[in-house]
């Protein structure tokens, strides 16, 4: 019935136009934001939801972690502010980790879109603020309250007017109020663009609302995903992986994947209980990083909307690392969440090995956050963005120095040095770090940073993979471990806050991705190429002996 309303030509046109509305809004947000995390890690998203709160279109370059969290946040907003109470120009925000994206720095903002007096849609944006009070970004807090300010669902704009005491309250609690205000405004700008473009769209298309279109688009996305899941043989597939956790508390992710026709269920029963440091991943985040890798592997081409994930369900026992109870610390939840892709692919590899890649050395991300005062007396806070290698896949070596499942870029070292009292002595590929395999894992990199300020500099490390390497797939070998050390050979705690003295040097070695397939099957020419290019050493070449 739904297809009678839209022929394939208009549907193609309307669908791509909705996506380009979100892309245009996202471009406005990105270009006006102050947060380096928004910019370098792409840590933001714009989503368009129908009047019932189902996601309809999302910006195409957005971060995977926000897939699906916006509609889940909107449900909480609608509980607090019933639909009939929303007015044009209203705007509601929260950063509650459980309702929204899993940690405090992300602000989720939703605004209604009215057309000819009727509420036709909600626009949603998420962006990582430059500061949210509390401890600077770190992995070692013991409860949520240390990590920063929690904003419950609250109206920030009423009919386009800022609610002054809300703004004052937030800005009075952060280190860089101008920039935080700038970023909240960047989100508001994106909402305005979205509302304006959507109104034009409805006029052009002669539509009163989005109900029928939304239904049709979701139907298409759902059918595409169901068809993809149906190609996976029915069965129950299990995989477990280990992570460093915190000190003696090593963590374990246990994943059970059940495929039944066109339905796929992910269950994390058997995963470690929540822990007293910021590694806990709330259910929203767990969900987001479960469905994203499934879509990459099975249905990469269909634009995503609420329909994409109707056939996928995700469950984790309450109180475990992947579904912690309030007020567990969650500041470094990426150290856990990024590992889910590896767990899911480990299970999927048993059913459809040609659709997945080996574990990524770039999952989870390894971050060093430097802050202090520079030579001109300006306060600085710099995150060293860099990635390890991706896992290899069927027919292709892993990408070196590339993040997955997140999509974090790296800025230039020249820019980095021009705004912080730090000198980077090298940023180079790390030979032999890619796991051996018929297809080799991507290489990690080595970076050496020296402090050249007259004052000591604070360092916060958020990293993993010092004990558990990225595993290979189908006989491939694991990639190299993460190594973090000072010039004198001592090793800082991988999830800690410390102080660096002027002249101190920090060496970060990022891990490589796992190999795919038996190394003995790798072509001689490929091994010789790797040797000539110095991607493997003579010692590393021995892994390929036939």
């Amino acid at each position, binding site marked *: 019935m739904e297809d009678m309303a839209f*022929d394939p030509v208009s549907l193609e046109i309307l669908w791509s136009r909705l996506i380009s509305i979100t892309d245009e809004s996202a471009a406005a947000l990105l270009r006006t934001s102050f947060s380096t995390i928004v910019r370098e890690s792409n840590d933001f998203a714009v989503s368009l939801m129908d009047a019932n709160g189902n996601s309809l279109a999302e910006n195409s370059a957005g971060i995977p972690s926000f897939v699906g969290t916006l509609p889940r946040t909107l449900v909480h907003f609608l509980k607090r502010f019933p639909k009939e109470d929303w007015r044009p120009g209203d705007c509601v925000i929260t950063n509650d980790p459980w309702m929204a994206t899993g940690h405090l720095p992300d602000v989720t903002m939703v605004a209604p879109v009215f057309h000819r007096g009727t509420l036709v849609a909600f626009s949603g944006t998420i962006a990582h603020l430059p500061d949210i009070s509390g401890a600077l970004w770190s992995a070692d807090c013991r409860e949520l309250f240390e990590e920063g300010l929690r904003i419950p669902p609250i109206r920030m704009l009423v009919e386009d007017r800022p609610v002054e005491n809300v703004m004052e309250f937030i800005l009075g609690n952060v280190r860089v109020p101008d920039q935080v205000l700038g970023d909240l405004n960047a989100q508001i700008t994106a909402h305005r663009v979205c509302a304006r473009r959507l109104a034009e769209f409805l006029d052009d298309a002669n539509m009163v609302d989005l109900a029928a279109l939304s239904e049709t688009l979701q139907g298409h996305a759902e059918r595409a995903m169901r068809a993809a899941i149906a190609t996976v043989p029915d069965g129950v597939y299990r995989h477990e992986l280990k992570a460093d956790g915190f000190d003696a508390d090593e963590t374990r992710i246990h994943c059970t994947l059940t495929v039944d026709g066109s339905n796929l269920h992910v269950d994390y029963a058997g995963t470690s209980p929540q822990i007293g440091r910021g590694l806990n991943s709330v259910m929203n985040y767990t969900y987001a990083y479960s469905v994203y890798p499934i879509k*990459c592997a099975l249905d990469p081409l269909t634009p995503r909307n609420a329909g994409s994930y109707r056939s996928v369900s995700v469950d984790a026992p309450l109180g475990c690392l992947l579904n912690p109870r309030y007020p567990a610390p969650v500041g470094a939840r990426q150290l856990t969440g990024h590992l889910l892709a590896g767990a899911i692919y480990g299970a999927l590899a048993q059913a459809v090995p040609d659709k997945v890649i080996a574990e990524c050395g770039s999952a989870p991300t390894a971050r060093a956050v430097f802050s202090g005062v520079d030579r001109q007396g300006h306060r600085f806070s710099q995150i060293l963005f860099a990635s390890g290698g991706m896992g290899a896949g069927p027919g292709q070596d892993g990408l070196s*120095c590339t993040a997955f499942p997140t999509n*974090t870029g790296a800025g230039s070292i020249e820019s980095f040095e021009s705004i912080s009292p730090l000198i980077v002595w090298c940023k180079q590929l790390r030979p032999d770090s890619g796991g051996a395999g018929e297809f080799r894992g991507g290489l990690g990199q080595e970076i050496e940073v020296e402090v050249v300020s007259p004052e000591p500099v604070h360092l916060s490390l958020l990293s993993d993979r010092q004990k558990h390497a990225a595993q290979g797939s189908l006989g491939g070998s694991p990639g190299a471990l993460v190594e973090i050390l000072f010039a004198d050979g001592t090793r800082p705690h991988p999830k800690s806050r410390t102080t660096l003295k002027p002249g101190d040097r920090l060496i970060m070695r990022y891990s490589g991705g796992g190999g795919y397939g038996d190394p003995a099957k790798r072509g001689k020419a490929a091994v010789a190429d790797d040797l000539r290019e110095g991607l493997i050493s003579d010692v590393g070449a021995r892994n390929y002996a036939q």
Partner: protein
Amino acid sequence: MSSLIRMGVDVGGTFTDFVLVDGLRDRIYTGKRLTTEGDPSQAILDGAQRLVDEASITIGQIAGVIHGTTLVANTIIERSGAKVGLITTRGFRDSIAIGRELRYDLYDLLMEQPQPLVPRHLRLEVDERLDALGTVLRPLDEAQLRDAVTQLTTEKVEAIAICFLHAYRNDIHEKRARAIVQAMALDVPVSISSEVAPEIREFERSSTTTANAYVQPLMQGYLARLEERLKAQGLVGHVHVMLSGGGATTIRAAQAFPIRLIESGPAAGAMAASFYARLMGLDHVISFDMGGTTAKMCLIDDCRPQHAHEFEAARVRRFRKGSGLPLKVPVIDLIEIGAGGGSMARIDGMGLLKVGPESAGADPGPICYQRGGTQPTVTDADLVLGYLSPDYFLGGEMQLDLASVRESVAALGAPLKLDVTATAAGIHSIVNENMAAATRMYVAEKGRDPRQYSMIAFGGAGPVHAYGLAKLLKLRRIVCPLGAGVMSALGLLVAPPAIDYVRSYVTRLNDIDWRHVNQLFDGMEREARRLLTDAGAQEVTFERRADMRHVGQGFEIDVPLPNVALGPDALGSIRESFLTTYNRLFDRRVESVPIEALSWRLTATAPMGEVALNFVRPGESGSRAPLKGRRQVHFAGIGFVDCPVYDRYGLRVGDHLDGPAVIEERESTIIVGPDGRITIDRFLSVVIDISAGTVKQD
């Protein structure tokens, strides 16, 4: 020799186009030859001779030849350039391979990354180091450098690129290194990053420097040979080359920085549109150039195209941002998308109709060409809809096969239960919508509203799709100049000699060292003046700009600087200029956050004389009857309409016509819907005004 006779030669992938302006007799002659692969100068010489014969002059009478070429772009796309050695600061030879670490496709687990132009074993490191202020932290180790050069010589590299950290700030080590290489008496060109692209960000700078080295041996040889052969054929006048930024430059300068020619061809098209905008007094123009494989759109405000400072070459995934090699070169800021006459239509996995970006190109080309193409293309759809005539394609030189086209289009639509007309109309509207979406995004990023713009349409498919695209963008006026097929060659002749320079100096506005800024501008102005005077300029005008942002942001905006002595007194107006520009782009003024500048830019332009537009056309004008006949033409929301078909060469200045109408010329066809009003202006351009109130999309 008269300075009034000049020739533009645009070498494209398929055709080499010629325009000869004879200012003595007020005539413009045009010509087209097939591009000679391998040695493009052959087609240039043949075509030039033919055109001067037609104009009854000699090559010796030509004052200047201006050349546009795709050779640089093709060399990089085909990876057919020189074997290059790269020398870097110790610890940074992998910058060029590690890049920005971004996945350009979020969902493709096995996406292909563009490979650097220099493999790792030819990337060597030496000890040397500057800090961000340009202070030497470690001196250049000259013994290591010599060893590196010896090693590269053993490898028989054909060009050397040198890229040291922070060399944009201080070129001392790069200059010294080049001197050492040259003193070692090597006969290979050396590109240094502080000259090729003196801008902050090591990946982009080294990518640009190596690309320059990569095309340099080829381009040096080619340009020298071209000049030599033209002179041998009798040319006394100068030979100039079109830069990607829309200015013309000397052969010598082009040989030093050949990478700046990468967008030479598309730049010429935008310059031609700017020229028409000036002639017609249009302040806000979108130029729309649609050919066989791509469509290019460019915003032209106040008769000048927008400029950008970076370009991405040789994308491994067609038209996907982030999948190519970034080049820091001044370019005309235009967008190019995979929408052309050859773009192929298909049904995707979800049963939706998709068009492009894959193109059937010229070979096999659309089905109607009858050269073996089997998948329906945009041109095929246009034929079914009556926009094109089977009997008058390329002026009748090519007969199109309608019957087999209808069959294939019908077969494509059958699974979707669409008949042949609905399928063809679908292809036409989808490709238009793809172009409209890209244009909307591009215009929005500039903080502009498309509805304020007129469109200048050209290229073989441009005038066919201009009407549909203009309606989607809610534009009111379309201009189709005469000579849709040779606009780029014309653009070469109307572009003033110009050159762009840049120097990076990162500073907060409040901490600026004005002496340093003025030194940077003085240096750039001196170089520009010398170069343009060499090229024959009498006077030179300068325009200064800076890349600025709020402290803490990662994206800079391009801000015009006041034309006064730069010093503390100018601070207020620089700040205001930033805030105004920012407000236009993002609708906000942020007064409280400090501002910083990163790069300082200079554009130098030499003014040029007027070009009169009297085309010499097939059959000469006026004498032919304008109405050729009638045919059924399809318009969205209406269906097939009985529509008059006019001969463009029969239309006279001042003629008025009402839509619907088809106007045929040799290289293109203009389609006008029922709500269009047509006027022929004094340059014989077809001007279409779309009535207000009927601009709804179907």
